[in-house]
């Protein structure tokens, strides 16, 4: 299928659609440019591996390197704790996203608003609708997804990818950040 069709066939995008992350350096540039990124991780990540390792390890590496606070939904928390990574918060995805639409909200640490939100691992259609909420109502927050399928409502998304390509991309993103 085309790289920029919504993964679920009927979740057609509107006039405003996500730009593509075709190479790791795009994502890295976006992350580096962000003043206050945040990452929202859903339970779907347990299903995926990146180059033989559980995807969560890749995300933890990323969060550590780029110093990104991680918000997890309920059942994902334990996965992180067991890897000695303390998420910044356990919150439902709609709740943290709703907060992001409030320009007055100063973040989990009360310092200043986030300007980049990275989503990964939510059920596709739930992530679709949540990203739609942010697209319309959080003009100051750019959004990115790390899922292996296209999410049209994000600011940036991977295209619909093979697991292999996607894993390579994700790995690249983390590795490049080290440099």
């Amino acid at each position, binding site marked *: 299928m085309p790289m920029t069709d919504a993964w679920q066939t009927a979740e057609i995008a509107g006039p405003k659609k996500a730009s593509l992350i075709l190479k790791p350096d795009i994502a890295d540039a976006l992350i580096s440019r962000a003043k206050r990124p945040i990452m929202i991780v859903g339970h779907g990540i347990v299903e995926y591996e990146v180059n033989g390792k559980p995807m969560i390890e890749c995300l933890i590496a990323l969060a550590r390197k780029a110093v990104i606070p991680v918000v997890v939904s309920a059942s994902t928390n334990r996965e992180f704790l067991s890897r000695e990574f303390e998420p910044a918060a356990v919150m439902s995805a709609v709740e943290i996203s709703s907060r992001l639409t409030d320009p007055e909200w100063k973040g989990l640490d009360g310092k200043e608003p986030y300007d980049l939100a990275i989503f990964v691992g939510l059920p596709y*259609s739930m992530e679709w609708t949540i990203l739609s909420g942010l697209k319309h109502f959080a003009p100051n927050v750019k959004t990115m997804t790390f899922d292996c399928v296209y999410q049209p409502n994000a600011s940036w998304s991977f295209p619909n990818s093979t697991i292999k390509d996607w894993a390579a991309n994700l790995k690249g993103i983390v590795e490049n950040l080290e440099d």
Partner: protein
Amino acid sequence: MSRKSVSFSIKEINSDLAQFRDLTVSIGAITRERWDEPMGPSPFPSLTTLRPWDRRLLSRYKPFYMPFCDLCCLCTYGKCDLTGSKKGACGISMPAQQSRIVLLAACVGAATHTSHAREILTHTIETFGRECKINVGGTGVEVEAPITRLVCGIKPETLGDLEPVLDYCENQLTQLLAVTHTGQEGSSLDFESKVFHTGMIDHLGMEVADIAQVSALGFPKADPESPLADLGLGTIDAKKPVILVIGHNVPPAAAIIDYLRDHGNAGDVEVTGICCTALDLTRYAPKAKVVGPISWQLRYIRSGVPDVIVVDEQCIRTDTLTESEKIHAPLIATSEKNCLGLPDMTDEPAEAIVAAFTHGDITGALILDAEKVGEVASRVALAVHPKRKKRGSIPTKHQVAEMAKKCTLCMQCRRACPNDLPVAQAVKLAASGNLSGLDELYDECLGCGRCESACKQKLPVHTLIVAAAEKQTLDETYCLRTGRGAIQDIEIRKVGGPIVLGEIPGVVAFVGCANFPKGSREVAEMVAEFAKRRYIVCTSGCAAMSAGMYRNDEGKTVYEQFSGAFEAGGVVNVGSCVSNAHIAGAAIKIASIFAKRPLRGNYEEIADYVYNRVGAVGVAWGAMSQKAAAIAAGFWRLGIPVIVGPHGTKYRRMLLGRADRDSDWMVHDARTGESVYGGPVPEHLFIAAETKEEAMVLIAKLAMRPNDTGKGRANKLANYIDLHKRHVGGMPSDVYRLVRTPADIPLTLKDEVDAHLAEHDWKESAIPDPTLLSRMVHSRKVA
């Protein structure tokens, strides 16, 4: 509000024409003056009467809109792009448009229940007369119609008394629907207030429908020990002629039972059902069998087991005629709302219709007469059964493997699956003869059939899944407690105190449709979990079936494990969709019967009571329909939070509280009049959970109320913390917001909680006598 309903009485007339005394003429019966409770401030509220209350709730729970589409396509100026701050040709903004769509959906839902109520009421009045007494629980239920009393300020005694209630519903729905017209309401919050109003109307309609059918059709009357009924494909004796009824309006199905009984065929024919008609049929005749929720429709029809299919209204697959023709099962449509293009044979003699079916002259007929449906369906089932030989459309395992070889792994099936299930991979695996992948899908499959529509190879994908899972389907032998209807006043009196004080940690209602993220199992698991924790657990509709579709280690379903009483640890199946009114009704009755708050036309005060004191939570894990949207809205206006599954984000907005903003949580202390912090409870009014684990933790949290006593709050916190530890890991980060005094701390967790509180600079605060209504201050002692 019905303006024509008239009641007049004349004490004495002396005239040239006549002399008489004590003449009373009462029509419409709004005011049979046998109720001495004084009228409250808001009988038959109009669109804006309760707007201040709604605005109060909405200022705490601000909508978070998640547009399901960037466009508006409702008028021909459009489509209009509403992305971000763009406005439509009519000036509409995206928040208003989203809430407008929510209102439209809620109107459709409420209209559906109300028109169903009208069907039932008209049918029962025709059969039993307008003066037929309402009886939902004999002497055990004195407050027969809590929502009607609360909203309309009337006390119905007969079926006829329910008519003005529906007149009011129809009038209000017409106005509410008009609000969605191009160039009407412009404020999203006013749309939301109207959504709440629609929800309240919906609950009224549901109450009328269930009261009428419980009263007239002999359903269990508030019976905690209503009989158990068979549930599941495996319970059906396919060797007999089998009739399948689908939908929500039970009279045609009941007429089948009557006909079979009256003609001595009661034991010869299996009467089976899907969706609420099935539930209500078991209330009428407990030997009827429930196949399952709406998601079982395709798999059951394709099995070829049903010999005749009878559909009435709501949540019936619209392609039923295509499917019934595939298995050569005659189809009978019975509702004006669902004619399916079929010839109207209502006025034909039953004999002729039976003949037309058995000779194969017709494959379906519209029959708008329940009694005739009863006769025709029964006779056709007996007649076609020997001929049909249960011709289904399920292939053998070998055939499955052969067909699967056509799969190109194009992934269209998976991309069409609402739950993104690995369909393509399973089909591909089947091509090698290994059907385990398909078999595994069965339990999570919603039965929507979109995978088939999408398949470029035209594989009957859903059928392949069902074929692979043959053993599972035969194992489906469960049971459910038939719908009991209302809650008895005595039950309310017993549990009112423990609930209001927080000692029963909450009332959790699992309701609604079957659009589950992972199949039915999660509902059954959640029901068991909260019953074990001594919550009061209610079920209704498709969720009531799903709850019964699993067995514990001892082989028992939740209905066998737990009592059917409205008590701590009970699993209370109220009945079908429209029986949801009894769940709202129970909350209202706690305020009215236990706390003795005036009920009549006194919506705000009662809702304020329920909101601040009754720890009720609704869970619609698979909510799918417009009816579900309306039901939820009715709960919100009463101040009862609702949790939905991940698909619930498609309802286009959440109503989320902000625990981090203390100013949002101020309440009046009724004793002192002071504005005091009431705590972020209940934290949300409408929220979608991503997983069952998240939902369970949320249930425990949203059951808290500002009025909880220390003992009660400690109990609720103990459950909350325990669930969080088990399913999330660690202590919840917000316990310090939920502990008000040391008495709130669960004894068994004292050290941990103390440490947590210390970390958060916790300070003790008082437990208020909470109300959101300034007029309630000092106005009376609170129960």
